[in-house]
């Protein structure tokens, strides 16, 4: 028993000693951390990734995601989220004009994060849909700026978000609601045709 008390005391002394010396470098750390956050969002383009890159791939992963959500498939949705992150990584910005680049980077900063979240949230389709709602706005902007090379439809669901409504992009004229899935698959209207 005596031993234990002795050791415990030694421990406290030791603890106090090393605690003091380790507490010093506090400042400066935060700026470094936030800088890292912003830089890590930029995709790192490597040599072999540059060849196959277009908005099409990003949009395709979005459409896959939309179809998975319409079928209440959280795992398929997550896989499409991961695919979208990969598509962003592959995208080659070098051919863009300055204006296009601005739009692209603005969209990417937001959309990439939604895609990551959707990828990580298999098992929580409600949360995936929340991010999908925000992601759809980004995709609309992207398609409007770059075109998608195919006929697309901008659809509206008036009921999602407690009646505030939400939009999505579809490749079919027929409505297949990703926000409510099979429960209310036909709910929604086409509000714009995109080309």
């Amino acid at each position, binding site marked *: 028993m005596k031993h234990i008390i002795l050791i415990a005391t030694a421990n406290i002394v030791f603890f106090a000693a090393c605690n003091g010396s*380790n507490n010093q470098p506090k400042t400066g750390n935060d700026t470094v951390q936030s800088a890292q956050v912003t830089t890590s969002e930029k995709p790192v383009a490597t040599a072999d990734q540059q060849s196959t890159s277009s908005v099409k791939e990003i949009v395709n992963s979005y459409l896959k995601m939309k179809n998975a959500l319409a079928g209440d498939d959280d795992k398929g949705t997550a896989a499409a989220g991961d695919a979208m992150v990969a598509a962003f990584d592959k995208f080659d910005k070098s051919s863009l004009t300055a204006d296009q680049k601005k739009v692209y980077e603005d969209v990417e900063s937001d959309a990439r994060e939604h895609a990551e979240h959707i990828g990580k949230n298999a098992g929580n389709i409600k949360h995936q849909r929340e991010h999908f709602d925000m992601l759809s706005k980004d995709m609309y902007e992207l398609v409007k700026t770059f075109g998608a090379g195919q006929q697309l439809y901008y659809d509206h669901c008036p009921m999602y978000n407690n009646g505030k409504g939400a939009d999505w992009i579809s490749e079919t004229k027929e409505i297949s609601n990703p926000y409510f899935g099979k429960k209310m698959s036909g709910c929604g209207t086409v509000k714009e045709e995109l080309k």
Partner: protein
Amino acid sequence: MRRTNKWLLMLLIAFAVIQCIQPARNKSGQVLQTDITNMYEVPADVQRVLKSACYDCHSNNTRYPWYSYIQPAGWWLAHHINEGKEELNFSDFGSYSLRRRISKLRSIENSIHDGSMPLSSYTLLHRDARLTEEEKRLIIAWVGGLRD
């Protein structure tokens, strides 16, 4: 008896050694240009709620509890703070693109609305971070106003 003592001693030594690996503290003390309070109107009552319920993990200034000095509790906290700040940092809100800001505000509303934030593991130890219905409404109305 001797055997147990030996194990106990080793455990205590290990415990003592890990105390020396203290994670960096998230406490900058300075207000960045990009702080949310420099960007938007943050009423005093909203600010109070943000400080007591959000800032510990979503800003550059954490109010550390006493057990944060004891490892491995401090490591666990540091991990949470890093994750929280990566997700949303009120101290650096202005560095986000407009699009991202709007998304963040939406996400704040969503997570307050369905109670996924503040984390239940956090409110368990920080009773003042539990939001009343009134406070939830306050925050939701505030972010809703900013978005428009």
